[in-house]
């Protein structure tokens, strides 16, 4: 289900940060959602690494801390089906931002941001493990939480809660 932005939010009072970013690089900002006191920018996949690097260094934002990378499955019939959320935080300015990349089911490749923040390594492995999103350029993309030989991606909506078969030692 689409997240409906508050009507007129972009026009009314976008945060100065988002406005400045839209002026500098308008092709990076596909959509802006301001809701519940948080700002979400939907970034196209090809500009993700450039945007992250820029946001890390830009004096206006200084997002030097990647708090979390979180995948989500919108639903089996949705298109685009998957999204990957990047939660950024600035240790000096104490503001937060969410970047969102939306992916369709057929093409779940996203460039890795491990070069920008080293902490992305494990977060991306977890998103790969649980959703099957493949991060291109990741140094070590393998399963982290589920066993190495597990079939399927557990947090997808079409994976049953109880799994496919009960446990036996065989």
């Amino acid at each position, binding site marked *: 289900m689409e997240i409906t932005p508050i009507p007129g939010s972009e026009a009314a009072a976008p945060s100065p940060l988002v406005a400045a970013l839209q002026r500098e690089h308008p092709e990076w900002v596909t959509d802006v959602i301001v809701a519940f006191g948080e700002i979400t920018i939907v970034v196209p996949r090809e500009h993700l690494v450039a945007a992250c690097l820029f946001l890390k260094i830009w004096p206006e934002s200084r997002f030097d801390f990647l708090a979390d990378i979180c995948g989500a499955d919108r639903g089996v019939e949705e298109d685009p089906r998957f999204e990957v959320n990047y939660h950024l935080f600035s240790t000096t300015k104490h503001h937060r931002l969410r970047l969102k990349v939306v992916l369709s089911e057929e093409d779940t490749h996203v460039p890795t941001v491990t070069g920008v923040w080293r902490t992305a390594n*494990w*977060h991306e492995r977890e998103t790969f493990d649980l959703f099957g999103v493949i991060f291109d350029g990741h140094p070590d993309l393998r399963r982290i939480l589920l066993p190495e030989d597990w079939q399927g991606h557990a947090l997808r909506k079409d994976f049953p*809660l109880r799994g496919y078969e009960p446990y036996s030692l065989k």
Partner: protein
Amino acid sequence: MSSVTIPPQFEVVDRPLDTQMTISMGPQHPSTHGVLRLELVLDGEMVVKVTPDIGYLHTGMEKLFEYKKYQQGIVITDRMDYLNPLGNNLAYCMAAEKLLGLEIPERAQTIRVLMCELQRIGSHLVWLGTHALDIGAMTVFFYCFREREKILNLIEAASGGRLTPSYFRIGGLMMDLPAGFERRCKQFLDAFPNAVDEFHTLLSGNRIFQKRTQGIGRISAEDAIDWGLSGPCLRGSGVNLDIRRANPYCGYENYDFEVPTEPDGDVWARYMVRMREMKESHKISLQALSRLKPGPVKADAPKVVLPDREAMKSHMDALIHHFLIVAEGFDVPAGEVYHPIEASKGELGVYMRSDGGPKPSRVHFRGPSFVNLSALPAMSEGEMVADIVAIIGSLDIVLGEIDR
């Protein structure tokens, strides 16, 4: 040199080990604080490479949240970071309250702060006991758990559960504090600084402890931020960052406390930060206790918050609301939030996404221990094997939070 001639087949050669050993430490190991497996590549005693292998406690909690109503999920959050269950409850409830736009009454906020700080002290006590036990100081383990029993008594009095309280609800608390709680809490808090001084006497001046922790496991401030460390691990490297100050919640901006930081970035620094944090939590708890005023503990939202039992038994609308909330749950507006709190281990963030129904569409917990553990290779390559134990102890990891 000596008069003894060594026969040629026993010739002494000085050749360091030219092969490296790969050994697996864990998952059943007394010092890994849970089911953690480390693949160590060793050159003699020195660690060349360490690769943590996690997932031995993966419980599928995030998938389970999607199948349970919002209020049912609170029970599951207890089992995540099981040393700081009230913190998990708080993060989850506050994320849901952000989505619902609820206004929490002041008494509930004060009690939340009080219980969270007591829980933080309890979590740090377990950390101290197990960390000291790993380094070799067994007495401290027993002393810490003795103090912790007093905290568990208080939490059990308030909520009914020692380790899995589920005390907070979406919209406030489960119920108000019992009679006599404030007196008992004050009794505990008055005696607590002596206990911390006792720990300092046992450990901080102890040369063995100092030698085993100073200079071990260093990480610089820039590396710490790049690796996403938070909480005492980050503050031990000199970065003054505390979510209670940076993005305050629950009224923390009104409390007077310091954020302890240490510049060195080694195991000793993290130890000192946590010891000082225990004293700061004690300060905050005393302030919270003194600010308790009578008032409601649940938000005024009859469709979300369960009514009091007396009201339910006497008023028809309360009964209907109770039935609907328990049987069908309440609809949460569509949207997504990310709510971080300062748990005892670092930044605990909850990403909650709702599609408009009574069950969440995605709940993700950003566990601080998950990220702190990912920095273990950066801290420990080049150290000795015995120091790995000290470094893991100083990271204060809880596998329930890492593996979820």
